[in-house]
């Protein structure tokens, strides 16, 4: 399997539930739940709190207090959670005492996947029949387009969790294609509920960022700070209002610190984009990295600082221009058996 370098947290989680039939019996899990509840009440008694209203957060705080641990990995520290979170949901045995399987698609090997495809195709045929009926009665087809932008389909891992069995990449893509076909039909509103089971809301990006308010220094001039980084360079920038457009880096003017035109262009990029070139003063400190990395770090820091001076719409424009994202590109490591990160040793025939 290919190892992805760029991963989100959803992709990194390993799905234990789909690995095989149950390793824990039902009776065992029930016993664990009883023990957990008893232990919760004992813990509440120990801490002097009310056993009835003892939430999971209180349990975590109590355990962290009673068993302090200096281990770095949070997953290695002492843990007390409800058994359904610790022992992942796994499939019960699929056949009865006489050996006959319960599900009619058991012998396909991927019963839940094929039954899901079967159901989805049934819904598709339903929608098409409804459409044909409407056409036969000469009624207009409803053409409200479902807003596909604010929602995304389930990822492969989430689908595996739902079905409790392994889904291959090919199968997953076929399922998504079928869902898209279903959602694209004009009369898909009938099966809206079914489609919503497999789609998730994606929040608008901007709402996840908090913009800090302006601060004022002794003379009453408004200023704001920002931090930026690029490769190994770290920079902090302080942008003052009512200025002449002077920029100071590590105590030196930019003409002395950045003799190259490209770096100076990068420093002025956020100001030029917002049209505020002569209006702000900037004082920044930067360390680490090379010439271009320091320029990129200061650019990010000044863009972050300018967010507090500007309306929300312009912050969204800055984000879409790529001024507010941290550049994740770093130097690739050298691999053993190769001369550099990509270059291989000279091939000699003998």
């Amino acid at each position, binding site marked *: *399997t*290919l*190892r*992805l*370098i*760029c*991963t*989100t947290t959803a992709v990194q989680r390993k799905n234990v539930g789909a690995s095989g039939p149950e390793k824990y019996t039902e009776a065992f899990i029930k016993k664990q739940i009883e023990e957990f509840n008893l232990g919760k009440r004992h813990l509440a008694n120990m801490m002097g709190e009310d056993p009835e209203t003892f939430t999971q957060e209180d349990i975590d705080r109590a355990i962290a207090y009673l068993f302090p641990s200096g281990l770095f990995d949070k997953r290695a520290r002492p843990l007390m959670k409800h058994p359904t979170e610790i022992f992942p949901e796994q499939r019960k045995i699929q056949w009865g005492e006489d050996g006959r399987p319960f599900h009619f698609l058991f012998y396909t090997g991927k019963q839940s996947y094929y039954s899901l495809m079967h159901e989805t195709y049934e819904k598709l045929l339903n929608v098409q029949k409804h459409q044909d009926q409407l056409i036969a009665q000469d009624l207009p087809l409803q053409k409200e387009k479902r*807003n596909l*932008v*604010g929602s995304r389909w389930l990822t492969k891992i989430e689908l595996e969790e739902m079905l409790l069995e392994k889904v291959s990449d090919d199968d997953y893509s076929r399922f998504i294609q079928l869902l898209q076909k279903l959602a694209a039909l004009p009369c898909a509103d009938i099966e809206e509920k079914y489609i919503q089971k497999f789609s998730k809301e*994606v*929040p*608008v*990006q*901007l709402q996840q960022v908090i913009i800090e308010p302006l601060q004022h220094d002794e003379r009453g001039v408004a200023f704001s700070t920002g931090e930026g980084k690029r490769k190994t360079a770290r920079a902090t920038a302080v942008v003052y209002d009512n200025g002449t457009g002077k920029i100071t880096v590590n105590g030196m003017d930019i003409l002395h610190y950045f003799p*190259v*035109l*490209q770096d100076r*262009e*990068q420093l*002025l*990029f956020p100001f*030029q*984009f917002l*049209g505020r070139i002569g209006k702000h003063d900037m004082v920044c400190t930067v360390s680490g990295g090379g010439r*271009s990395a320091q*320029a*990129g770090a200061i650019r*990010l820091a000044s863009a972050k600082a300018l967010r507090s001076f500007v309306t929300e719409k312009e912050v*969204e*424009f800055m*984000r*879409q*221009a*790529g*001024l507010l*994202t*941290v*550049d*994740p*590109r*770093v130097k690739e490591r050298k691999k053993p058996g190769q001369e550099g990160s990509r270059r291989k040793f000279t091939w000699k025939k003998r």
Partner: protein
Amino acid sequence: RIMPVRWSRYNPNYLEPEVKKESYQKPLEELTEEEREQMELKAVRPIKAAPPSLSSSVFSDPMISKFTNMMMKSGNKVLARSLMSQTLEAIKRKQLEKYHKAPENEKETIECNPYVIFHQALKNCQPIIGLSNITKGGKTYQVPVPLTDNRKRFLAMKWLITECRENKHRRTLMPEKLCQELLLAFNNEGPIIKKKHVLHKMAEANRAYAHFRWW
């Protein structure tokens, strides 16, 4: 464990940044359906950081930066950039000389903007059709094949640079030679235009093998 060869540090969800100021100042009514969908998509998806060679100022041009990157040797961007600016200056000077010497009625036809000359010259150098080697039945044939936009631009720039690096008098500097070639290409003359015509003629000659192409 297999590592993919062409990967990037960005999630595939990330979209390309749009740097030009004008595209953000258009009011909502002027946008078409596609542009509206694009805008909504951009509001939801994360966006990559703008690279250091891209800027919203009037002076940054994607074609010029591509050309500077192709001219660069061993990562010496400073030198490549200075050569490029010297070339554009030289073009401007030559055109101004011509402008001041020309009579009144011809003054309007002389183009002084070096960026316009660069773009027009590149356009004139781009081949329309290319040749590719296809092996069939043991023999390799040169089959005429349509080229994508990127490939056309790349070939035009590559021919320009190789022409300037090799076929010049020993003492001429790169900016001077580039400036001469660009002005010749602007007027549809010069060795690069000849090369393009030769390629077109070869493609026309091998027209019989065009059915070997399967894509």
